[in-house]
């Protein structure tokens, strides 16, 4: 294996629940990745600035507030506009199945719900790394089918 993967784990919007984000951050660290955690209540632009300055390959978004349909696509759009379409974006939290198809259409490659084994997320990262064009602005229509 080459260099560790750099992953930004972010909490966008007005949402104070970060237990899940911290569990994911820890699992990624224990799998040998470098995780940059943004802390709570970040704006879309703050998150994108962090991804840019930290040169992260992956961005994980956590939302339990119900605002994912607004926040996630906005972040995807800003990433593409600001020349960061190669960043691979995944999401997690309380995100109903019915909302997921729409989020995938914005370039998000995986959505992990409550009860997802952390190994699932690690497998997603390993697989996404090897696939071409799976950045948020990439042409691939591949997405990860999560178990939860």
């Amino acid at each position, binding site marked *: 294996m*080459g*260099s*560790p993967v*750099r992953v930004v784990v972010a909490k966008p919007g007005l949402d104070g629940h970060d237990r899940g984000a911290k569990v994911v*951050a*820890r699992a*990624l*660290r*224990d*799998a*040998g*990745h*470098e*995780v*940059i*955690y*943004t*802390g709570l209540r970040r704006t879309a632009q*703050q998150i994108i*600035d*962090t991804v*840019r*300055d*930290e*040169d992260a390959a992956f961005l994980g978004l956590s939302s339990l507030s119900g605002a994912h349909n607004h926040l996630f696509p906005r972040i995807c759009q800003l990433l593409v506009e*600001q*020349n*960061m379409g190669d960043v691979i974006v995944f999401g997690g939290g309380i995100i109903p199945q019915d909302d997921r198809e729409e989020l995938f259409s914005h370039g998000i490659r995986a959505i992990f719900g409550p009860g997802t084994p952390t190994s699932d997320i690690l497998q997603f990262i390993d697989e996404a790394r090897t696939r071409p064009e799976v950045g948020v602005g990439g042409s691939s229509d591949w997405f990860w089918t999560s178990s939860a």
Partner: protein
Amino acid sequence: MVLDFICVGDFVTRQELLLARQGSRRDLARLLSLIEDGSYLFDDMSRIDASRDMSIAITGSPGVGKSVLCDQLLNHWASSGYNVALLAVDPSSPRSGGALLGDRIRLKSIDDDAIKDRIYVRSIATRKSTGSVPLIVRDMAALLHDVGYQRVLIETVGSGQSELRCAAVADRIVLVEGPARGDSIQAEKAGLLELADAVIVNKADIEGARKHFDELKESLALEQDELPQMFLVSALEQTGTKELADQLFNLASTQRAKKSRIYQHLLASHEQRLTQHPGLNEVLDLILEGTLHIDDALSHLNGSS
């Protein structure tokens, strides 16, 4: 034509360097990653002006308030119109090689729209068993100077050799202390006081800070002729921090600190040379078998590789 930098896949990096100099932080971030991976050796010091650019290590034990102090220094300098950067070095997990980098959480200045474009922050993990981290940090600071950041802060935990050497590659070293940290012997043991150009006692709002400050000053005066500059501040209440930022911006170095830094730098270079020697594994096996003495191994590894 002058080859002003050496790199692998040179056309791309040359292009990125030009864009980074024009202010593209995306390209700057990518170049820093390439330095970190060891695939880009930035050694063009021609644009770096020692009278204009300075890297300052901020080091000290966990919990003394390094991040909050760094935040206030960045804020103050950026508000004065300077471009400033922070390299926050954190240890990687020795077991998995991964790292959780959370320094950004404590930085308020990067959320301030008025100054955030003049502040660049990068988290660095020490990664697994690399003796080369300090030299990587040095090269990253040099690149930041090159693209226009006049002050680069290097925040490290002041424990462990790798972290100590990360501090030693900076132009200046500032040691942060807090009250109630036992006696001043603790700081002396760590070998940090002899490296420091300035010593800050933070948390002046807590009882005992003044006493600790006086004790440190006394013990330093006893054994050194060139005293580091000393500051008593409270980052929490922001008392003394403005003066601190003004003073640190043009901090002078002492001969003693310079010499100690060169010593650490020498050790870092030596360690890198050993750990990157292609025959290292073979030599280790020979020592294990008992067929090679450690002195012979050293002279072999130090010979031309």
